[in-house]
């Protein structure tokens, strides 16, 4: 159960997109963006942890790599 008002300032979304792109034959950010429906810059921002994607976008990225969501994205405190 979520704790309302809990301090989550230190928590952040992590991801394995760079690794998964490498394992998928050096898939480019542009290719991934095209398959997901976002720009290359957005993929770069997600990879760098500067932008947290919507749940729908996260599922689409996981679908491209044929992985469950938790293997692509994590929650780090």
């Amino acid at each position, binding site marked *: 159960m979520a704790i309302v008002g809990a301090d989550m300032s230190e928590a952040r979304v992590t991801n394995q997109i760079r690794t998964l792109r490498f394992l998928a034959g050096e898939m480019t950010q542009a290719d991934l963006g095209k398959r997901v*429906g*976002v*720009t290359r*810059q*957005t993929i770069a*921002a997600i990879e*760098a*942890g*500067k*932008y*947290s*994607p*919507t749940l729908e*976008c996260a599922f689409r990225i996981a679908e491209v790599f044929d992985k469950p969501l938790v293997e692509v994205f994590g929650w780090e405190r």
Partner: protein
Amino acid sequence: MLSKERFAWVWLTALAVVFALYFTYISVNADAVAGMHMGQRIGLLAVALGSLGVIALLTTLLGRHREEDGTPTPIDERDRRIEARASVYAYYVLMAGIILVGCVMPFTTGGWTIVHATLLAIAAAECVHATLVIHGYRRGGHV
């Protein structure tokens, strides 16, 4: 740099330069401007606003980024989030300006002072919008 960020930079610079020139001109030549006919004063204002329009149009036309297949770069969720955040804060600034101009200034002043205050309110809101768009793309888009 994304075309949207580039546009925001150009727009912010254009706003600062054009309004600085306009307000400097009418301040330095206050007596001459006060003696102008209504048409001349509106013309002066139209030149300032028209130049902003031309800059915006040229920047949009020249800065349109296209994909390799020639289609325009799509707007995605991050663009929409950055735009929404910038618009919310710009709206607050505009509302504050409009309340000042529409509800306070008519009781203390009038005429061209109100016109210029309105322009400043719009310019301030646009500057806040452009600044937050730039900030959003620089930081990555977190709200």
